[in-house]
């Protein structure tokens, strides 16, 4: 009993876990409500689809969480998703081996991430402006790569690529979700167990103290934008595999979904706070709301309004909780 208690205490002692537990309770309630409204919600088919639907949000959410924890933001995620989708699809339709196409696509995404990091940390551009610029550039590349047209089908040669990134199943669950889980595991380890992870939190928490403690701010900020771009790149590949074509407007508004997943899961927009487990829960809430409201017959507009309100309330709660810390410090 004691050991059980201490394990629970140890889990709850992780910073940000309290919020994750609260949001998880909310998620359970949501699932129950949608399950009562429509019993089809809890069918295997729906759950498998739901998990596949969640994968892109979870991936982009992980990337955005990294950036938000440093106190910055990445608005170029959606464009990088589109760019990744278009570049990979174009290369595949031109007969390039799908795996070579994947590597080339990821290299371009990484360059985009490094560019974002350099603009923010080295050139000192406000992250909002810097990534707004690269967002337009990314979308432009997505349009120009196939001469301003969506691509044709990536063809039979890319069948294995489609199986790996979208339609294949492992243990009854689509591979797209497994990819998201693996990416999450890697980046969660990076954030919670490594020196880089601590530097990321330190930069978001107190950038001056981080500088004085010898943290390389440029390197740390580049790393977070790179993680974000890698996640967006993989998301683009999943979308390419799902549609079987490259679409120029793929990934539109994904930066917003990513912010939603992060913020709902307790990642602070003010930096320094949040854990990736929260982003998972945030992505699930986003997915369940989309899926459940669709089952309930709610139009897209209503779904957007509901999610938008939840995001605003989450940020508001974060600001209120944070400002509560500014109470006068007790003297002993």
């Amino acid at each position: 009993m004691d050991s059980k208690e201490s394990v629970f205490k140890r889990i709850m002692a992780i910073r940000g876990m309290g919020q994750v537990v609260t949001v998880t309770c909310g998620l359970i309630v949501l699932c129950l409500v949608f399950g009562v409204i429509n019993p089809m919600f809890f069918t295997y088919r729906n759950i498998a689809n739901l998990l596949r639907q969640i994968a892109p949000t979870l991936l982009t959410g992980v990337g955005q969480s990294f950036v938000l924890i440093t106190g910055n933001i990445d608005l170029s995620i959606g464009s990088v998703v589109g760019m990744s989708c278009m570049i990979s699809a174009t290369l595949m339709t031109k007969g390039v081996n799908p795996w070579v196409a994947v590597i080339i696509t990821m290299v371009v995404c990484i360059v985009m991430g490094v560019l974002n990091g350099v603009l923010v940390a080295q050139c000192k551009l406000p992250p909002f402006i810097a990534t707004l610029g690269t967002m337009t550039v990314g979308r432009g590349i997505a349009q120009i790569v196939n001469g301003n047209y969506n691509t044709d089908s990536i063809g039979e040669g890319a069948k294995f690529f489609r199986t790996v990134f979208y339609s294949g199943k492992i243990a009854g669950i689509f591979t797209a979700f497994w990819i998201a889980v693996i990416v999450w595991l890697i980046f969660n380890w990076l954030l919670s167990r490594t020196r880089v992870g601590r530097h990321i939190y330190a930069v978001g928490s107190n950038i001056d103290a981080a500088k004085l403690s010898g943290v390389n701010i440029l390197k740390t900020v580049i790393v977070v934008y790179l993680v974000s771009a890698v996640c967006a790149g993989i998301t683009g590949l999943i979308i390419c595999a799902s549609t079987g074509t490259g679409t120029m407007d793929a990934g539109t508004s994904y930066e917003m979904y990513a912010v939603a997943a992060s913020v709902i899961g307790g990642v602070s927009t003010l930096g320094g706070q949040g854990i990736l487990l929260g982003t998972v829960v945030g992505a699930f809430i986003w997915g369940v709301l989309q899926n459940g409201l669709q089952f309930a017959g709610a139009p897209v507009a209503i779904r957007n309004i509901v999610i938008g309100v939840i995001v605003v309330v989450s940020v508001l709660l974060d600001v209120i909780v944070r400002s509560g810390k500014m109470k006068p410090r007790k003297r002993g």
Partner: protein
Amino acid sequence: MREEVLRLENVSQQIEGEYYLKDINLHILKGEIVGFVAPETKGKKELIQILEKNIPITYGKVYINNRLVNSYVHSNLSYNKIYVIGQKSTLVSDLNIADNLFVLRRGFRKNVINKKVLRVQTERLMTEFGLKLKPDTVVMRLKPIDRCMVELVRAWLMDCSLIVLDNCDSFLGEEDIGRLQGMIQEFCRREVAFLYMGNHHEEIYKVCHRAILFANGQIRKKFSKQELDDEHINPYITRFGAVPRERLQSSREELLSMTDITYQNLRGFTMSVRKGECVVLLVNDSNVSRDILSLMTEGENPQKGLISLRGREYTARMSKKALLHGVGVIEEDPVHTMIFPELSVLDNLTFLMDRKLDKVVLKKRYYESILREYQELMGDALRKKNVADLRNEDLYRLVYNRMYLFHPDLIFCVSPFAHGDMQCRQVVLELISQLKGIGISVIILQVNVSDSMIVADRLLVVHGGEVEKAYDKNEFYLIKR
């Protein structure tokens, strides 16, 4: 008889069940300077808030110019005509002096600003108060003393009958304090009253007409003009405890030397520090401190001169990675500048460990070992999850022990005694001696002598960017406060 400017009657302030102000009775007359000696910070901030704006109080009444402005029955949250001058400026740093004085003033109604008229008006004011400041100077370029002067003039323009000076000796040097006090006396003649707050009564006593001793949220003692001397206040204040002498011995081995350095505000600056030595650099201009830190930690090259560390040239490249080359900095007000509020206490303490051990992933056993070892130095504070739950003294311990754990060869401490109360300053003294005890050299950069003499081995007075005078420990008695 002179008119009364401020009267506090039995004012008490309770926050979350704890008294920050208890039964405060205070009155200030027009043109009077009342000293406010506060060795502890508790309640001081709350008192300033009550004076500035009428926030709810638990008990008592506040009168300004004989008018009841706040009471325990009703607080209207309005602002009083009381100006507070402290380390944090209330001027807008990106605007010039003229704009700050005239445009950003309650009651300024003009929509179109005539710059020429503003300039003429500002120049007239500056001449009136004997200030040689150009109206177009942007506030951020002003020296701290000039900024204080502009704030005094602004308070005058805003028709404030009382000005609160909050711990000005923490950011102004001896010479500047003298200038400020001269100006205060000039304002007194114009019937402006002052509440002169500070940690050190010696500074305050030079100009005030009477004084009060404030501790633990209460007025402990009131001193009349005749009682303004050490003899009367000594029984009520605690002097710093002794710091063990045997731990303060430094070796003869030279660690850092700066020879004939010319860089921005430094002009032929020369100094050296031995291993385990504590040197105080008394600088009258905070820009000089910034320049030294830029050279040592921000990758800047001196225009002339040589810096050497452990007998080898200390290059700009090394300075970019100062910590890895054994040079650390504890910034001014470390409670706010050096703490990561979102990290746990243990994470804050061990923040530099990965670089010390050169490991990407720190194993759990390292944390457990540090936890055991530092329990004695940090006490229960180390077990707390949230740094917001720590007392100020513990936060100081956290920052200094982080450096202690990392063990650089040299640490620059910027104004380490400027922000804490008596208790914190005692803790800082102990922590500095603890660093010296393990052979770390400490260079204290500050604008006034303050309390640093207790741990210092040498004191260098820097004036005009060069070392003007040097005092060894046995010559400290020659230094006038």
